[in-house]
Each structure stands twice: as C-alpha cells, then as structure tokens.
C-alpha cells in the first residue's frame, strides 16, 4: 500500500535558519505530490504542489520543494525561516491513477524561536 514518511517529527529552529523537511513515499508509479501546512488554530491549507514538469516547485511564503524521482522524495525547503512559520507541515501523495485518494504523512511540527 502507498505510504508517506516524514522523518522529522519535531524541528526547532531559530529565526533566519534554513529549513529542510524530509518526505519519502513508497509508490513506484506516477504520483502527484503536495505539502500542506496547519498554522496554530487554523485549518490545513495547501503550501505547494507538484504534478509534472520542473521538479523544483515554488509555493507560498518563500517555500519550495524538490521532487527527486530516483529517491522517491519531495523535501520541503526554505532558506530563512520566520517566527510566523511555526506550524505543522504535512507531505501528501496521490497516485495519478486515483487522484482522489490523497495520503498524508504523519506531519512535522516546526517551532521557530524568535
């Protein structure tokens, strides 16, 4: 069965530090990839997505992610985090043959210290 792994469960950074959150998936076919974010007290919202084309995708608030097919990875990056980036981050994957079934990883809690 398809699964998504996020290896960092809790990350603590100081402002201006660089961020990279890992995401790996287990499906060998064509996939679409997403990162969702949940800010404190808010609902889940889309940060960025990859369907095809340039494997380096840019999202909102300066986030980017790189799809590396050979490594089954879709890591999220940001060069310089801000206190307002404190949130929970979820990687998610669906199969191109069944795009309605979006599978989420267990999430990474990011805490940015001012």
């Amino acid at each position: 069965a398809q699964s998504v792994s996020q290896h960092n469960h809790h990350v603590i950074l100081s402002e201006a530090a660089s961020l990279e959150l890992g995401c790996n998936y287990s499906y060998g076919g064509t996939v679409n990839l997403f990162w969702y974010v949940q800010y404190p007290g808010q609902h889940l919202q889309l940060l960025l997505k990859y369907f095809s084309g340039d494997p380096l995708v840019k999202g909102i608030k300066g986030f980017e992610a790189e799809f590396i097919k050979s490594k089954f990875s879709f890591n999220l990056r940001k060069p310089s985090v801000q206190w307002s980036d404190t949130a929970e981050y979820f990687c998610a994957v669906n199969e191109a043959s069944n795009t309605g079934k979006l599978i989420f990883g267990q999430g990474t809690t990011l805490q940015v210290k001012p």
Partner: protein
Amino acid sequence: GAGVSQTPSNKVTEKGKYVELRCDPISGHTALYWYRQSLGQGPEFLIYFQGTGAADDSGLPNDRFFAVRPEGSVSTLKIQRTERGDSAVYLCASSSQEGGELFFGEGSRLTVL
C-alpha cells in the same frame, strides 16, 4: 458559503452510541473528502465522493462507518456503535476537481467516553 463548514465542532458521546457528522463543502465543489486525524498523526483517508457517489471508500475502517452525499453537496459521516478508539478529529475537505487542491474545514472533534 465561503469555506467548508463542519458540524458539530465538538461531540462527546458514550461508547455504543450512534453519531452523525455533517460537512457542507464549498459551493460548486464536486469532490468531497473525509479524513480522520488522531493526536500526533497526519490525516488518515477515509472516503471521497465525486458528485453523489463514493468514488473510493477504501479507508473506512470497518462497517460501523458509513458516509452519504445524496444530492452531491452536503455529506454526512455516520458512525454506529461508537468505540473509544473512534475518538479523533474528523476532517472534511472539498475540491473543485478530483485531485485538485483540497480545502479543509475546521474539523469535528469526536470524543467517545
């Protein structure tokens, strides 16, 4: 409405009782999704609808769980004979097309005593 609306926001019930959770998607969104999220975990897929029909219900944990969307808009998730392990936040999301960006509601927190 402006966003996905879920009611109730909180539900406390006793083991063995029947529970209904309602989701009102964004107007015009044809796809509707139910997820369950336990503390410290990511959202767990339950079922999604394309229009009135359940396109994939492979995530429903057992036959105590059932969901309907009779008119292709509002959906109800029904849980029979609730168990303590059903306690979680039940999330609903909708999208304008299957596989597109999911817009989530605030969730319904279910506590089974």
